[in-house]
């Protein structure tokens, strides 16, 4: 087992180095400093920024320095927000993202696994057909449209109709309620949000619901396909032959055996728990990781882009390794290949 984990880790090291190489290379196709400062920058400013970003050194030196500093999460200072380090920005933007993505993932998984199970159980009957049709229809609508109409019907319209008690907000004043406390570990300030239930409902419930509805279509179809495949296996026929109840077959036999694809599916969405949904964060004005990264990209804030991509890619790779390990735990055959 340990050798398997070690093999997976070692295999992914060149992949990670490749990602950093790719991102750093892409960001240096055009001189970052010119891109950030625009056409009317003066020489002194340019020289200063180039010096502080280490652009005068050869690429390989920059790459090495980035790796070395990256080990301590030191990605330098943001250009746009003078005086704040990328690490502070990074740590501050994780909690807002997670306050949306974690509930969304749990809700989506529970609901769509149940629906998928139901759909495969009533396979070919009207309820199954209805669910399949609904899933295909739902998949064909753009995410943006869900968000726009979700905001309209979920928050705007009830407010317009004068429902004073309606709790959901379109967002916008996220910063006001999202006050941060922090504790320190090994000299690293780790912020955590002071969330109380009411403010969570006010600002986060609507994006969570929208995200659940959007992913329902894809997930339901996937889980249904998994279950249907399991339905045709011999062990189900055996269970049926020995007289197990349908419910027991469904929840005990089938669900357990369908666990591998389910785990994989959930694990692959884990990195998005941290990166958050870029679109939801943009629309609901949530200062999460996705939004911060996209604003950094449009602002040409190079240290931010580099640091954020490095961390996101690392999390992504770690979750892939974790998936492989879990896989190997559940299914010993994987370890050998």
């Amino acid at each position, binding site marked *: 087992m340990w050798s398997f984990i070690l093999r997976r880790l070692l295999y992914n090291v*060149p*992949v*990670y180095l*490749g*990602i950093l190489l*790719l*991102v750093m290379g*892409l*960001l240096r*196709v*055009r001189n970052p400093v010119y*891109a950030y400062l625009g056409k009317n920058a003066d020489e002194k400013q340019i020289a200063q920024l180039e010096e502080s970003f280490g652009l005068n050194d050869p690429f390989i030196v920059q790459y090495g320095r980035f790796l070395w500093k990256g080990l301590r999460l030191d990605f330098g200072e943001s250009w746009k927000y003078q005086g704040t380090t990328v690490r502070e920005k990074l740590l501050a933007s994780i909690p807002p993202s997670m306050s949306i993505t974690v509930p969304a993932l749990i809700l989506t998984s529970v609901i769509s696994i149940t629906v998928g199970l139901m759909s495969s159980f009533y396979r070919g009957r009207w309820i199954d057909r209805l669910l399949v049709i609904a899933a*295909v*229809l739902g*998949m*064909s*609508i*753009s*995410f*943006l*449209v869900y968000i*726009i*109409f979700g*905001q*309209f019907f979920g928050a*705007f319209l009830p407010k317009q109709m004068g429902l004073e008690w309606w709790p959901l907000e379109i967002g916008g004043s996220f910063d006001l309620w999202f006050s941060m406390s922090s504790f320190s570990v090994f000299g690293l300030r780790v912020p955590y949000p002071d969330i109380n239930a009411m403010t969570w409902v006010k600002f986060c419930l609507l994006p969570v619901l929208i995200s659940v509805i959007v992913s329902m279509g894809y997930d339901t179809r996937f889980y*249904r*396909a998994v279950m*249907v*495949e399991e339905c045709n296996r011999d062990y189900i026929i055996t269970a049926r032959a020995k007289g197990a109840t349908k419910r027991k077959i469904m929840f005990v036999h089938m669900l357990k055996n369908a666990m591998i694809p389910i785990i994989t599916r959930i694990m692959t969405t884990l*990195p*998005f728990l941290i*990166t958050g949904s*870029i*679109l939801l964060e*943009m629309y609901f004005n949530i200062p999460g990781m*996705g939004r911060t*990264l*996209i604003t950094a*990209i*449009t602002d*040409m804030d190079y240290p931010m*882009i580099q640091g954020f*991509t490095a961390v*996101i*890619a690392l999390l*992504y*790779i770690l979750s*892939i390794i974790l998936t492989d390990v879990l896989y190997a735990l559940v299914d010993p055959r994987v370890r050998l290949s």
Partner: protein
Amino acid sequence: MTGRLLRSRGARKFRRNRLAMAALGVILLYFATAVFLFFGGVSMEATKERVAPKHTPGFFQTPDLDQRLAFAMHFISEVDSATRLASRRDQHPHDILVEKALAERRPARLEPQRYDELLDEAFGILEEELDLVDNIADHPELEPRVERVEEIAAAFFPMPTGWEGRAYWSRTFLGSDAAGQSISIRAIYSIKVAFQIGLITSVISVLFGSLLGAAAAFFGGWVDHAITWVFSTLSSIPYLVLLSVLIVVFFGTIFDDPERPFLSLVPIYVAFCSTFWIGPCRVIRGETMKIKELEYVQAATAIGFGRVYILLKHVIPNTAHLMFINFSLLFIGAIKSEVILSFLGLGVKGQASWGIMIRDAKDEVASYFFWQIGAATFLMFVLVLAFNIFTDALQDAFDPRHVD
């Protein structure tokens, strides 16, 4: 390669699926429209022309009194300023008004003093009756007066009749956006943009990806390692982040110029192609792994064919069905991603597209104006739905492992 695929058992199964054939019909209809548009069916200028006062609603709806009044006043105030300018310059007001025409709705040439008479009447109604109430929408008894104002506006700018009238109707039947541009024309023009992006990126990605995938699996060794490394690297960066970084590379170059709408699509092509090829590459690699162990490949080797020949002649043609399935999956992906990128301001520039329309419509929804988002969403929905059904049917017919 395609000929054999079309005669295969899977193809027959596909043809029996009526829903899938209907979906194929819809796709072909869209495609024909796209081709028609590509060869100049609707010019880009037509999508930018002002055709009506801003936020004109479409045809199922009669606007509120205050909106009707606002539309009429749009024309009347144009005439008002034109007559003042004309008297200063000693010109006929018509000469100035010609520039204010909204597509086919051109100004009529009246006697110079007739302009003043009508204007006086309109402003009289406005000042003495309509301005006295707070909200005209709450006073249905004022409707005849508003109608009179509308008549005056129509006297200045008569509704076109005959063929011109029909052309004008086709531009305005879905209303107009915030800049007074025709929603119907823009939504239909977007079909071309969607097909341009979808076809180019998915054809290139599928061909490139399948070739690499097949080569990786067939040759194995370092080729396989290199290709696997490249695609696992690319797929370990979140998709939208990679797309945005790739597009940012083109910022400030000639590919970032709204004045050159065709060139400004190039960053999208590059970004999509460099991420989309991974999907087909993975699938085809897996399939080739299986195929290369099959007897007919061994037989071909035994006869003495070269490895590249076997790869191109025997292996890749047997993955053709997967290529088609991936093509249609990528097409859907391209259309959806275009919308998202355009929203983020990284997508289509300088011309209409469904993403641009949905982005523009974002704020209109708060004032209960759904025409723009409705038109864009509907056209996109039908196309994506047809592609979804088509893909499902393809998988059903050709992929034995696919679960119905």
